[in-house]
């Protein structure tokens, strides 16, 4: 059982929905970013998605693109991203960390080396945007063997015929992308998302977490109420970009968490 499985068991027992946040590792710099990440569980975050910076994030909108650039300009690398996770683990051994990013830095590092290092750093799961099920041999299957969850994205274009393929090697949870589009763009509508979540739920026992286009406590509540949880990324990254203090950022996160937990 990974930390992710344990977290969902705990949430289930308490009858609570999951609140998941995304922040870019090293944005705007290593120390600030570590401080924010360390504060997330206290602000009500159940699962942390840690962004791995990449020069060419083709599924991300401007907010996360710029966060990645700030991190890279500050000297962030894959190695330092894992270091950040390890530093976080020194103070928190239960909150799951999901590393989210693109394949090239991982491929460049070497899949086996990466998996060993990620595991040692206390990473629990991976979301790699540009690895669809057709490329499962690359990282998904080795990751599961190494004891990491591989979390797949399901999208509005994933039809019923394709859904089993998407779910087949997925573990931890399913990340439902609420819109066709990039992060931080259009707004998700609970009315559209509900039936889609139900459709996926009929095909899997895994929890369904919904992300993309969720930016307020009200939205987090509405989306969480029709799923097993909600993800907020760009809205938090925007707060960091605008130079808010860590306390202010975490207060905003807390308001979102309260929203999701009401859902």
């Amino acid at each position, binding site marked *: 059982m990974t930390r992710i499985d344990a977290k969902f068991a705990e949430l289930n027992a308490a009858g609570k929905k999951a609140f998941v946040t995304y922040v870019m590792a090293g944005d705007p710099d290593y120390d600030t970013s570590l401080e924010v990440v360390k504060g997330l569980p206290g602000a009500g975050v159940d699962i942390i998605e840690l962004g791995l*910076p*990449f*020069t*060419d*994030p*083709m*599924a991300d*909108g*401007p907010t996360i*693109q710029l966060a990645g*650039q700030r991190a*890279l300009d500050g000297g962030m*690398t*894959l*190695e330092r991203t894992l270091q950040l996770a390890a530093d976080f683990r020194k103070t928190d051994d239960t909150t799951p960390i999901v590393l989210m990013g*693109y*394949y*090239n*830095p*991982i*491929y*460049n*590092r070497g899949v086996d080396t990466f998996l060993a290092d990620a595991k040692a750093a206390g990473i629990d799961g991976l979301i790699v*945007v*540009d*690895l*669809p*099920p*057709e*490329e499962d041999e690359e990282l998904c299957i080795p990751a599961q063997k190494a004891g990491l969850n591989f979390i*797949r*994205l*399901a*999208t*509005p*274009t*994933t*039809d019923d015929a*394709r859904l089993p393929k*998407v779910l087949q090697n997925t573990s931890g949870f399913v990340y439902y*992308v609420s819109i*066709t*589009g*990039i992060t931080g*763009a*259009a707004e998700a509508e609970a009315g559209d998302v509900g039936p889609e979540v139900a459709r996926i739920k009929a095909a899997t026992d895994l929890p369904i977490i919904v992300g993309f286009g969720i930016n307020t406590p009200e939205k987090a509540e509405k989306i969480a109420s029709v799923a097993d949880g909600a993800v907020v990324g760009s809205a938090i990254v925007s707060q960091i970009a605008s130079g808010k203090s860590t306390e202010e950022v975490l207060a905003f996160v807390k308001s979102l968490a309260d929203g999701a937990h009401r859902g």
Partner: protein
Amino acid sequence: MADDLFNSFMNGPDEQGRFGIFGGRFVSETLMPLILSLEEEYNRAKDDPSFWAEMRDLWTHYVGRPSPLYHAERLSAELGGAKIYMKRDELNHTGAHKVNNVLGQILLARRMGKTRIIAETGAGQHGVATATVCAKFGLKCVVYMGAHDVKRQAPNVFRMRLLGAEVIPVTSGRGTLKDAMNDALRDWVTNVRDTFYCIGTAAGPHPYPAMVRDFQSVIGKEVRWQLAEQEGEGRLPDTVIAAIGGGSNAIGLFHPFLDDPSVKIIGVEAGGKGVDDRIQHCASLTGGRPGVLHGNRTYLLQDEDGQIQEGYSISAGLDYPGIGPEHSWLHDTGRAEYVSITDKEALEAFQVSCRTEGIIPALEPSHALAHVMKIAPDLPSDHIIVMNMCGRGDKDVYTVAKHLGFDMSDTEEGRTFEE
């Protein structure tokens, strides 16, 4: 070397879209169903004679194919060695080979009922070709172009607008061709229902590299029969040479000759200011290593951490940090040889072509020509080289003038040119 069907170099890609370890489908889940349906549609079209009949009709009457295979007599004499032929794809409508592929993709888009076409462009040649064909068929066209290139290539931006396309300057990342491709992918992921992504080179997720290659292979197929016509039945070139950015004109010339072991195949990458650690070049094969970007695994310019690096070349059309996956495979198997040519050598070749043949070449094929100039003098007079003159140089005269110290700032055209 290939001596039977099972060892053919022409069977790729496999069902996973791989050429050896290269290629593949490294895209987000939102795009995956679109790419699968494109593959399905392409496979249907490929075996449909009416599809190819329509292509041939347009190639003949709209593009002006076949393009001539031209014996460059004065150039051959001046170099004093091999017999040099130029495949004149610069005479195509829109001035480059790009239109060969665009026609094929737009016909597919029409078969799929897509009404909105998006494209990325660097120098603007693929953007112009896409805008042209969209105008012909009355389709909405949106072209993503790096903000830096929009400035450098103002005449092509205006051409695209005249043709009714919307040109979107890309400011994300560093505002170059790779960023334009990122933004085109972001558009596609957002507008999945009505939009067709017309990729300009033999790269991207499967089936693009194979599909673009098949459309561009008209170049090499014509060379086969044209050379036989001029040099006698069964005569093949001894060497074929083409410039490579993403590599679509090159794979179009090379592919029909892959299983002819007597034909030496040479791809010429942009060496910029020299292929060394400073990365002031775009030579992905000679200066990069395998990685994953824009949907495929291929050789890439990247740093130690796997972050993609910006290339540099005098030629905006070669200014891309990757290369089509089939070239990466041909490189690793040794079937083709890849070399690099510097800005300086390309500029020299540009002038030699003007002076000896009355042909103003684009800077891209000037790289191929520069390599021809290197090897031709040492080859016998019965050695036939075919180089791909894949684009004309009108778009480049301002860049060349600047490098040669010729001041055009007082001319009417010069004032529209910003650098």
